[in-house]
């Protein structure tokens, strides 16, 4: 197999792989929300409730600080 053919196969499979990753990401976003692991839509409120005195939508907790 010459280098050009190898590149063409590589390019095709890489693109197919990236498409699979993208669809996998869509599946992940929706399934995580369905299972209740994470509610992505609540993050939209970060822009609306952005006064410095507002309660953060998801606060950096003490446990996060310790983990660091």
């Amino acid at each position: 197999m010459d280098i050009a053919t190898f590149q063409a196969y590589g390019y095709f499979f890489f693109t197919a792989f990236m498409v699979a990753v993208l669809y996998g990401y869509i599946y992940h976003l929706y399934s995580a929300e369905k299972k209740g692991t994470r509610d992505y839509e609540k993050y939209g409120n970060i822009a609306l409730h952005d006064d410095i005195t507002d309660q953060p939508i998801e606060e950096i907790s003490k446990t996060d600080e310790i983990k660091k």
Partner: protein
Amino acid sequence: MENRPLEYDYTVAKWFMLSTIVLGIVGMLVGVILAWEMAFPAVNTIAGSGLAEYTNFSRLRPLHTDAVIFGFTLSGIFSTWYYIGQRVLKVSMAESKFLMFLGKLHFALYLLVVVAVVGSLLLGITTSKEYAEFEWPIDIAVVVVWVTWGMGIFGLIGIRREKSLYISIWYYIATFLGIAMLYLFNNMEIPTYFASGGIGAWYHSVSMYSGTNDALVQWWYGHNAVAFGFTVPIVAMIYYFLPKESGQAVYSYKLSLLAFWGLMFVYLWAGGHHLLFSTVPDWMQTMGSVFSVVLILPSWGSAINMLLTMKGEWQQVAASPLIKFMVLASTFYMFSTLEGPIQAIKSVNALAHFTDWIVGHVHDGTLGWVGFMIMAALFHMAPRIFKREIYSKSLMGTQFWIQTLGVVLYFTSMWIAGITQGMMWRAHDEFGNLAYSFIDTVAVLHPYFTIRAVGGTLYLVGMFLFAYNMYKTMTSSRRVEESELQNASPMGA
């Protein structure tokens, strides 16, 4: 020590706001002069033949492009970052002396680079690479400015209270990383004075790449400067300012994440469309075309998300000139991200390349999308920064319609001019002799060049109205209470 409640500190945002307005006027004024020079060549020597060196088209052209890209747009990006960054991370710059110092240093260094760029371009000192004209000493200074900004970004993220990074922050980070990578690789150059042992000017350099490789790297950079300068950070702005001003959370946060990764992956491969029918390998040209067409999806993902954010709230478009600016901006974004892929199709490109249609495309994107969104962002920020209402709503409305007319005149005249040019260049008789000489096309295009200059002038007039409205907002508008600043911006009649 006084015990004041914590507040966001907009000092640096305010400084960059001023540089956005000033450099916007400079860049657009030069653009308008250039447009009149194209229509009426005598304008090239308008200041007399002695000064023709400084007023001719070729000397001023890079000053226009660089002033609007690296002056107006970049200042707008920095200003909005220092505003949005604090708010969505829920942390004030006043909480860190170091970050405050970095922010101020960032602005000071940026101004020095602006002075160096304007001076060197006016003197004709250039690397001759489009949008990368700065010589190596300025390039090094640009890197320092950029790193200072980056330290500020990640420093602020490091001390945030909000755990999740709002989608706009993702886009600002992508802007920082994208431009850093592009700028470094495209500006790899050899200072000739030092490499040759003292020949020529000390500031002169040549590119480290040559021939086709140079062109490839240049357009990988050039196209992605559009991506990471004119698209990614402007999307960051609209994802914050439209929801905030309208009081509506972004329609689909999941779609915003998906569109982000789509844009990141696809945009970087599309630059090859600038080199169709050139010496670049054919497969690379095809790849540039294909990725350009695919690029419609993530671009429209963001734009549709913005328009759907207004779902059920369309009365706000009629009521608020500020919402008008943003909705028209996202509409122009959709429009130019459809037009671009069409131009990148090989058969269309065969007609469109090197014609004024390309210039029209750039300007419906930059004037309609980038310009409108940055001005809307500044309008939204001004009452919060200066604690005063926007001076005049009716002036905003007037500005909106004057500038919209200006953009429409600009791109429609360039469409007609571009397609006419393309058709005339390729026309031939039965023996294959070209039907027209170059000057034939110039004569035919003259009316359209004039219409373009009128369109550009209208946009500049709107820019002056904007500057006046902002000046009055800063200095003499009615003072407002914090409670008036929740969503829709307060505006005087």
